[in-house]
């Protein structure tokens, strides 16, 4: 028995439930839907006649042709194909099930059922059907290709390769199946930016097409895509035209280059391709979705919503569409835009837009604005690139909303994504623990804006990521080279990739930690270039990517050495910088472990001793499991306040960002009368944990003491926005700041709110007396 097509919401759903009556009504309104060319997978002449009509652009005739198949006596598997072509996937599914019951040995019925399930994103069911087909016909090339496609939604590289190999190598494999298999392979190598190999494979595919007389529109679309990604832009349209000449309704002639434009982060051009794709093929629901996502990335929100809704109306199977629809509800209802400067200067166009959740806007705005504006100024100067459009910063309190906004599907552990002048990132509330420093993420993503836009979206992934990490370390809110402990293990094992292959570490990781290892390697590469060749060389290389130069050539041109020479020098740099540590890594890790074990056992003296040894080996290590934290806490247990303070101070000065540790340090500074230092620490806390009302209150109080009421007011307003339990104090603090700013009316408003809550609140009563005497 067939699995049942799942569709959470769709206007076609009642067709199955109510059977023949609605079935007729549907046929009256049916229109041929976009689907892939059969490439000879089926040989029913009546069906192929309909297919030919469709692909030759005679859509009305094709429609009538498919309808006639449904209305006349035909095998159920052929009727299923007609219903599929007419867009009724449920009935197609039922008919295929009937066909399977009538012809249990017909492998192609199972293959086509699998294809239908692949098209409806139900890959596990699809895979099962292909396997059933392969049980009947182990060499069925179509089944192998279908199984490979079903598996490609997961992470099953070896099994995919085995199926692809089986499809391509068997002597009896139909030429259409071999072509489809080659097209999948070309897509795969192009997704990995291996354009030379794609070129070779395309040439082989062209030979096959010409020898066997197969349709060539898919190859032309891939040629267009390859021309686009290799910056042969004047050739793109030629290939698209050739595809459309052969198959006028073939929207993928544009959608395929659109896809490759999108994955190479050229969203503007991608949108243009997809726009043309939906003009040619209005029923290409996936193209509408991609177009909608592209519009959202380009900050054309209304247009984005429109196309995603069209996609949803047409195809409720696509989980990406469903996710996007759910996101749009949040996006349109919960988010507000704030523009800066306000009002805009000069041409009236703002430089910065913060798009924040309503519940977080009052808390995050001052710090996000300050960080965004300062990072923009830094990057403009360091990369000789003034932003040409407003930079839009979206901060999501819900991590899954952020991921869906970024890539369409939830469940991915990313923190920020930059599309160009717009980037999206997680709010600190999306990560309720101490490991997330949102200020650094904002800084990192803002660096992407400048590298991506300065290179006109031509910068390789590793290059852009490397600069962002390098900027985190050198100009970010918590400067200092920060390498997670587990990455050191990989460094000790020599896991860094040659620079020419570094993109693979991001795009096609071969082990779980490789993406982070690659981030660190890329950051260190720019640290190395900056120290050995100067920061200007980084800029020189960046601007070479505008012309489509590859990284190897860019290195050769800017640094005057080959990439292999560069790798050798870089290794020497890493050996010099980290060699002593990496050689002693097991000892350091043992000391770190001992620190935590002794601490957990309450052996404070032993914990401190082990922490001191770990710090001696690696003094710059200030991650969340830093020995400084355990050491400070152990000193605290022993009531060694000065040692605790010194430990926390060193931790902070080295770039430690544990909010709890920093709050302790700030309190120590206050107790010691070092208010300026306390301010600096509290401000650092904001970039890790801005949702602690106590911090804002304490910082505001220091500002008041230092006669900086405007700064105090900002902190107090944020404190009130956090809806503190003690509303009276929060309102009183604001009133006192306004009083200090000589704004008595504002002061009185907040003061009376405080006194309404707490009439006997003595400091507030005192302020009321002062205000009333000033009035008189």
């Amino acid at each position, binding site marked *: 028995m067939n699995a049942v097509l799942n569709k959470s919401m769709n206007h076609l759903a009642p067709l199955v439930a109510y059977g023949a009556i609605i079935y007729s009504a549907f046929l009256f309104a049916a229109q041929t839907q976009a689907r892939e060319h059969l490439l000879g997978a089926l040989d029913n002449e009546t069906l192929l006649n309909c297919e030919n009509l469709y692909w030759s652009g005679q859509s009305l005739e094709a429609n009538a042709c498919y309808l006639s198949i449904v209305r006349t006596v035909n095998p159920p598997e052929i009727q299923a194909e007609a219903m599929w072509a007419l867009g009724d996937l449920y009935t197609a599914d039922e008919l295929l099930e009937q066909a399977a019951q009538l012809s249990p040995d017909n492998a192609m019925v199972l293959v086509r059922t699998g294809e239908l399930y692949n098209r409806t994103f139900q890959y596990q069911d699809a895979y099962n059907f292909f396997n059933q087909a392969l049980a009947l016909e182990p060499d069925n090339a179509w089944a192998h290709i279908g199984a490979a496609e079903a598996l490609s939604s997961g992470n099953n590289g070896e099994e995919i390769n085995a199926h692809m190999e089986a499809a391509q190598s068997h002597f009896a494999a139909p030429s259409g199946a071999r072509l489809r298999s080659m097209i999948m392979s070309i897509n795969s190598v192009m997704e990995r930016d291996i354009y030379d190999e794609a070129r070779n494979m395309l040439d082989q595919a062209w030979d096959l097409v010409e020898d066997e007389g197969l349709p060539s529109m898919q190859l032309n679309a891939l040629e267009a895509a390859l021309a686009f990604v290799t910056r042969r832009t004047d050739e793109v349209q030629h290939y698209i035209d050739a595809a459309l000449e052969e198959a006028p309704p073939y929207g993928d002639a544009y959608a395929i280059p659109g896809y490759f434009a999108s994955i190479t982060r050229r969203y503007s051009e991608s949108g243009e391709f997809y726009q043309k794709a939906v003009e040619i093929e209005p029923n290409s629901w996936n193209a509408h979705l991609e177009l909608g996502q592209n519009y959202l990335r380009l900050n054309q929100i209304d247009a984005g919503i429109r196309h995603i809704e069209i996609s949803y109306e047409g195809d409720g199977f696509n989980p990406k569409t469903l996710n996007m629809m759910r996101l749009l509800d949040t996006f349109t209802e919960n988010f507000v835009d704030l523009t800066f400067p306000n009002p805009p200067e000069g041409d009236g166009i703002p430089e910065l837009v913060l798009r924040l959740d309503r519940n977080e806007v009052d808390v995050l705005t001052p710090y996000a604005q300050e960080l965004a504006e300062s990072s923009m100024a830094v990057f403009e100067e360091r990369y000789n690139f003034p932003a040409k459009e407003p930079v839009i910063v979206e901060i999501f309190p819900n991590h899954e909303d952020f991921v869906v906004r970024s890539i369409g599907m939830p469940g991915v552990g990313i923190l920020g994504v930059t599309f160009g002048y717009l980037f999206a990132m997680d709010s600190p509330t999306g990560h309720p623990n101490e490991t997330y420093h949102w200020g650094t993420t904002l800084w990192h993503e803002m660096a992407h804006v400048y590298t991506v836009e300065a290179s006109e979206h031509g910068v390789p992934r590793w290059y852009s990521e490397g600069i962002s990490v390098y900027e985190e370390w050198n100009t970010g809110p918590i400067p200092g080279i920060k390498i997670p402990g587990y990455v050191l293990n990989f460094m000790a094992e020599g896991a860094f990739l040659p620079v020419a292959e570094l993109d693979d570490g991001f795009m096609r990781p071969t082990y779980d930690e490789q993406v982070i290892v690659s981030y660190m390697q890329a950051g260190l590469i720019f640290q190395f270039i900056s120290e050995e060749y100067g920061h200007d060389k980084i800029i020189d290389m960046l601007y070479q990517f505008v012309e489509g130069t590859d990284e190897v050539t860019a290195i050769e041109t800017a640094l005057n050495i080959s990439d292999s020479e560069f790798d050798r020098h870089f290794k020497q740099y890493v050996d010099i910088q980290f060699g002593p540590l990496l050689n002693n890594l097991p000892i350091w890790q043992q000391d770190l472990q001992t620190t935590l074990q002794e601490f957990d056992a309450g052996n404070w003296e032993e914990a401190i001793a082990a922490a001191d040894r770990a710090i001696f080996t690696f003094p710059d290590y200030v991650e969340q499991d830093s020995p400084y934290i355990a050491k400070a806490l152990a000193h605290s247990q022993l009531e060694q306040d000065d040692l605790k303070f010194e430990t926390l101070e060193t931790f902070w000065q080295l770039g430690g960002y544990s909010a709890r540790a920093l709050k302790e340090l700030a309190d120590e500074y206050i107790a010691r009368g070092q208010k300026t230092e306390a301010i600096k620490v509290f401000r650092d806390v904001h970039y890790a944990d801005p949702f602690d009302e106590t911090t804002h209150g304490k910082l505001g109080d220091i500002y008041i003491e230092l006669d900086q009421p405007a700064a105090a007011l900002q902190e107090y307003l944020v404190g009130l926005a956090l809806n503190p339990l003690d509303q009276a104090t929060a309102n009183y603090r604001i009133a006192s700041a306004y009083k200090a700013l000589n704004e008595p009316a504002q002061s009185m408003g907040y003061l009376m709110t405080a006194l*309404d809550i707490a*009439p006997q609140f*003595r400091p507030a009563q005192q302020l009321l007396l002062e205000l009333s005497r000033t009035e008189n």
Partner: protein
Amino acid sequence: MRIILVFSAILMSSVSLSAQAELYVTIVQGLGGEPTFEENFHTQSQTIAEASASLTDADKITFFNGDDATRENLLRHFSTQSAIMDVDDRAAIYLIGHGGFDGEEYKFNIPGIDITTDDILNVMDSFPGQNHFLLNTSSTSGALLEPLANENRILVTATRNGNEKNATFFGEYFVEALSSEDADLNKNNNISIEEAFGFAQRQVEEYFESQGQLATEHPELTGNGAAQFTIARINQVAISTENPRIAELQEQNLEIDRQIESLQLRRTELSNEDYIEQLQALILQSARINEEIDQLTRE
């Protein structure tokens, strides 16, 4: 051991009970099972007893612990108490300890036979008048909410239902509120049930958040009158017996407090402008009085 506590009487700057009304406080320290729990429960119970001493006469505060905290003794005590209570009087019962819920019945763990939902319901129902208060800090204590539900009865439980079975932190924070200025949100030097609950609830949330753990307890407060029911006083100010002028000013301040309370109750009858104007005038008077008291005190 049953302890009757004796503490000195302190000025009540805001009176929640009517002039003749009495407050009857009963504290039951349940079985701890382990020394740490025993110690914690005892400290919490003692603190409640001390806080209550600022609100009512010592002979109206009863503290059951150890072998005395049996079902028989408790039921006898409550029977006697309800017999002498007036309709204007209020009862406050604090159950500090462990509890269990088997899906049908909640039990608070004491030596011998535990007290059950029905026992507690019968006790609460036996009191004349309304707005009596029950605090139960045990795990699963939320199982009491439904059977005891009554809008004229104030219930505070450490959990929201009978399924939250982990040992709770709520009681510790609730008791901390009784002497915390941070819990005194209206700065009147009184801690109401609502204030103590809000303080403890926030602390529980912060605790679990700081540990990066899902909260295993969600405190609940039901019933009317929690904001008006004072359960502790902090920074108590005694009416001066040495300086008659200060005593007079303190009395005036109490009168102004009553006027403010009355104004706040009539808030919906006034425009916002009128309300703020009248409130401001009253608080200004109070502020001037306090200023004069401070001056006289300094002299």
